[in-house]
């Protein structure tokens, strides 16, 4: 099943670095994530990029495979 990875503030708010979902589309997964985690997660999500297997998805209706890795990428601050 698709896995959701969460970093930085997203990890802090959800309380998890990774979580499994039974969703078949990106949209379904995000809706379910907002239901599972505290309300603030939706705000963090709105201010973050989403990647599927390291790339930006073309749309939220994108279908997810059971091996897909979805990541919540809050604003980055490397270096």
């Amino acid at each position, binding site marked *: 099943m698709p896995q959701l990875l969460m*970093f930085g503030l997203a990890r802090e708010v959800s309380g998890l670095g990774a979580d499994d979902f039974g969703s078949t589309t990106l949209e379904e997964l995000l809706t379910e994530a907002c239901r599972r985690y505290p309300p603030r997660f939706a705000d963090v999500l709105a201010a973050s990029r989403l990647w599927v297997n390291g790339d930006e998805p073309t749309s939220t209706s994108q279908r997810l495979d059971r091996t897909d890795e979805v990541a919540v990428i809050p604003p980055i601050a490397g*270096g």
Partner: protein
Amino acid sequence: MFVEAEPTGDMWCLVRDSLPSVSNAMSWATLTTTGAVVVFSGTVRDHAPGYEAVTAITYEAYESEALKRLAAIATRAREVWIEIDRIALWHRIGRVALGEASVHVVVSAPHRGQAFCAAEFCIDVLKASVPVWKLEHAANGTGWAETGVEAASVEDAARRWLSEHEGRI
């Protein structure tokens, strides 16, 4: 036992909680064709927007993607500055104390102009595209850096950098 990750050809990319000494990268980068080795080290400083008396920063990364992106940045730099000898891009993760380095960029080339330019390209594109986060530990509290930027793709960040520095290449 601590095993050093080996360089891949003329690139040496690392994302890990303990980095080798940067002098290892400098020796590795110095070939017989090399006339210039540029080293950039980013270090933890005592202040940041919203944080005073910073004592350390904890770096978090999406490790697999960060490593892929470092390699993509080095590859792109080699395409632009074709005479480059070697590139090392190392990012430390975990808790990094005040004054310690969190990132090293080492570029060697026959001439300094290319080495300086490519090193600046690498650190700027890294900051715009590599998935790393900073948790600041300061006298007035602990929190995520306020200076984050929306993550761009390596391709987009590189294109933007090259167009902004057109006259220098």
